[in-house]
């Protein structure tokens, strides 16, 4: 093969690499568009719900969790680093400020039994279903 053939092949592979990169970026962000901060994951069983959210660096004492009926609201804040004279940011990507997130759960919660844990920057909230909300078994009598 001629040297010029190699060159042409090299240039052909480049747009493919760009395509791969775009594909990776887009597939990672497929569901990105309208999620409010902070992102939550919710796990549900017949009689319990678990909500997890990542809040690194937030003081757990300042996190406000309130539950009303089926609605869970999480509020909190993270202070930005205060720079002194002569200090400067090379990069600033981390979020700061206040946040509020409300989510609707599939059933009414027993607010007296809600528990929350803050482990390694992840908030775990355990929300048991309210007794009155649990489905009651109805016996079918045969005539």
């Amino acid at each position, binding site marked *: 093969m001629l040297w010029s053939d190699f060159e042409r092949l090299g240039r052909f592979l480049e747009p493919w690499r760009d395509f791969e990169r775009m594909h990776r970026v887009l597939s990672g962000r497929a569901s990105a568009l309208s999620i409010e901060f902070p992102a939550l994951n919710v*796990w549900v*069983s017949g009689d319990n719900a678990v909500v997890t959210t990542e809040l690194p660096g937030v003081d757990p004492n300042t996190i406000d969790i309130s539950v009303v009926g089926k609605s869970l609201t999480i509020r909190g804040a993270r202070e930005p*680093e205060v720079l002194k004279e002569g200090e400067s940011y090379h*990069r600033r990507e981390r*979020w700061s400020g206040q946040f509020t997130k409300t989510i609707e759960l599939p059933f009414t919660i027993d607010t007296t039994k809600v528990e929350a844990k803050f482990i*390694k920057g992840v908030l775990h909230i355990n929300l048991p279903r309210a007794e009155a909300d649990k489905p009651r078994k109805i016996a079918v009598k045969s005539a």
Partner: protein
Amino acid sequence: MPDATKEVQKKEADAPEKGELTRASRVYAPSVDIIERKDDIIVTADMPGVDEKSVDIMLEKNVLTIYGKVEAVIPEKHNLYISEYGIGDYQRAFTLTDEVDREKIQASVKNGVLRVVLPKAEAIKTKKITVKAEA
């Protein structure tokens, strides 16, 4: 800028050139703040789910790589109802300049935030040459 919009989606880490991990885990690039102070440079990275035992900091030639391993805590007998974020490890690499005193690098993790202190090398700190104007 940080107050206006909070980045919600986690960014996938760039595919490592050295090869994939043996663990089939997602890898994200953590958000990072880098502050230059008088005597050191501070790198702060958000790595929720990571503590001091599961973080790995490696310095190879000029490249500082931070890696945080995350154990996903999945509640038993529950089904995923809403999923707004993925769970996985964190990785990011930085090229350091000669400014950094490699022997004195320190790191700590608190509430899922990794803080790496990179002290500036002595030689760089004390060299301050005053320039006189030539009349």
